[in-house]
């Protein structure tokens, strides 16, 4: 139970302490941002979730980003609804939309919902800037922050003994081999 309660904090620590590169962490943040913005209950959200968990990106960073942007997503519904409505009303795309909708599993995709499509477009539009900004920040601050965190006893306690194997050498508490 305690482990379950501490998992978010542990994941937060893992964003910086995992052996992932800054690219992987930034990619996780970008994918999590899109996933957070898009309403759930459709194949787009499922695909984004699969991408987050299936691709070699920082999963913890993605989940934290998704959680944070879910709050923001609800606040941007008005904007994303208008954006999606405009996108779905483009004349030249109607036949494509209809074709897509008529495909098997087409109605399950959820792209015909104004907020789903609008938030997807917004997320995709913001994903690369988000990736670049996250990478820039990580390149500059990941190493010193990680070193500072590694020195904290609470960090070591959070990561737990099961992770000692992975972080044994840097932390100097690894098993002997």
């Amino acid at each position, binding site marked *: 139970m305690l482990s379950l309660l501490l998992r978010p904090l542990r994941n937060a620590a893992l964003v910086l302490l995992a052996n992932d590169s800054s690219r992987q962490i930034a990619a996780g943040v970008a994918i999590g941002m899109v996933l957070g913005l898009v*309403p759930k209950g459709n194949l787009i959200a499922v695909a984004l979730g699969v991408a987050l*968990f*299936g*691709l*070699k990106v920082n999963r913890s960073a993605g989940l934290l980003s998704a959680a944070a942007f879910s709050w923001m997503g609800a606040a941007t*519904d008005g904007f*994303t*609804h208008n954006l*999606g*409505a405009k996108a*779905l*009303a483009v004349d030249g795309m*109607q036949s494509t*939309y*209809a074709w897509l*909708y*008529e495909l*098997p*599993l*087409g*109605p*399950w995709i959820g792209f*015909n*919902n*104004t*907020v*789903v499509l*609008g938030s997807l477009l917004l997320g995709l539009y913001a994903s690369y800037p988000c990736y670049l900004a996250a990478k820039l920040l990580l390149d500059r601050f990941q190493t010193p922050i990680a070193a500072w965190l590694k020195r904290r006893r609470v960090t070591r306690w959070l990561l737990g003994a099961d992770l000692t194997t992975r972080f044994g050498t840097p932390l100097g508490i690894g098993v002997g081999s």
Partner: protein
Amino acid sequence: MKRLFGLAGVFRWGYLAPRLGVVLAGLCVIELGAGWVVKQAIRAAGEPAVGARINLAKSRATVLGSRIELAGLQVANPDAPMTNLVEADAIDLDLDGALLLRKRAVIKRGSVRGLRFGTARVASGELPDLCTSDDTLGATAPGARWAADAAGDKAKAWLENLGQRFTADPQEQFQAPQVARDLRDKWLGEYDQLEALADQIKADSKRLTDQVAEAKKNPLRNAEFLRGVPSEITALREKFRELYARADALPGLIEADRERVAAARRHDEQLLRESLAVSEIDTASLTAYLIGEEVAGPMNQLVGWLRWARRMAPAKIDAGQATRSRGVDVLFGDAKPPPNLLVKTLDLSGTARLAGRPVELSGVLTDFTPQPTRHDQPLRLALNATGALPLRVRATIDRTGATPRDELLADCQGIALPEMKLGGGRWLGLTVGAGPATLNVSLLLEGDTLSGDVQLVQQQVRVQPTRPANPSSRAAPLREALAGSLRRLPTIATRVDLGGTLDNPDFKLWSNLGPAVAQAMESAVRDAVNQQSERLLAASQQEVDKQLAGLTAEVTAARSKLQPLLGGLDESIEQVATQLTGGNPFSKLGRMPAGLLK
């Protein structure tokens, strides 16, 4: 190839592989558990809609095979929880698999076998937490205006009035017998008075005779008395003359009073005519009185079914765009979204009991959907019953246009109607014997406007007036005359015209039974009135004759008794005069004529 392997390095296969395995296992579970899901979905969606419990003995479904097989379906009747509204042995449904992936359940072809209706249940089908609704199955239309109600009341009042006229005894109000009785008493009293007066005169004359005889023994001493005797004799004679004159006038006065009896009799005849006069009845009112109650129940139930059907297939057209909690679902191409559930063709077969007779049912239900406004074809039901009771039913629920349209056509030949008791009132009830009948129903509900008619024709009928619990002897002739007239009625045709709206339906009732009964009643009442009048007047006349005969006899007897009395009086007075004069001293007074008192 190298590039492909490089791409493969992007994925965490160690993460994906077990999860793909879990997904495959999930699909297997879905395939195996689809039957249970279908069973729960049917109960969850069906029970609130029907308002009663739905039981399903067996349910098999395959997502890959796009097929559902159900067995032992029981839908309880919300109005009678211990019976099933409908029961089916087996239901097979072939789904369109491609459309399942498009979020739509379209049953291309299905069959329902072993349909039965109204079967008994082992356990109650009542839902414990169900809120009761006005729109329960076949519920009576709350605002139904039954045009027959007022007419039925009118006929009831007419019959009540008729019955009272035949049960009331107008003899109590007859004057002639009473006048005859009064006359008899009056004249007998008169003769008694005359007799008493004669006795008085006789006693006076005797007393005077005795006093004169006594006085004559000493005339000097009684000279004063003897001088007054002649005046007393004169007074006696005067009284006698008055008595004689009254006795002489009596026969003439009696004859005059007999005229009073005749006048009273004329009054009695007039009174009888007025008391038995019956106004003409409105045939429509009589029809409403006889059939109204019998027809009102089924008609209200029929409208209740229409209301239920309209609730099941709402008339309101859905908007082209479905809204969710977040955003709006935009649809492409079609003007309206397709229905989520559609049954294209469903073959029906089973058995039922109609009017107590077993029939084999077969039919086809096409284009059924709980969202009819989203479908471009109306729901159609074609149902045929074969066997003892041939029946054809065609129903259409059309939501394709701007105005919702529901139509029901039913044609049933050879219904065996059971014996029916009509009217049931205190004064007029009819028993219609069991017999074959044909039923035609044609109903159209366009928008909210109701129109159509229901016709029932019963052949080879035997109609008889019902014998009341306490039959009145006076009403017996009326009942017999009515029975005779109704024996000639070959068929009973009844038609109910529907109008108004679904919330305020309007029914108009017509039947040939009303006019036939009215005609029979008119004839029977006329005969009964004549018979009643003759009987009552004859009884009255008999009473009058009896009183008058008694009067004549008693007056004759009284006269016979009075006549010698008056003759004796004359002699008695003469004897006083003779005794006073000792010869014929008062001969100048004269005597009464000998035949005066005859």
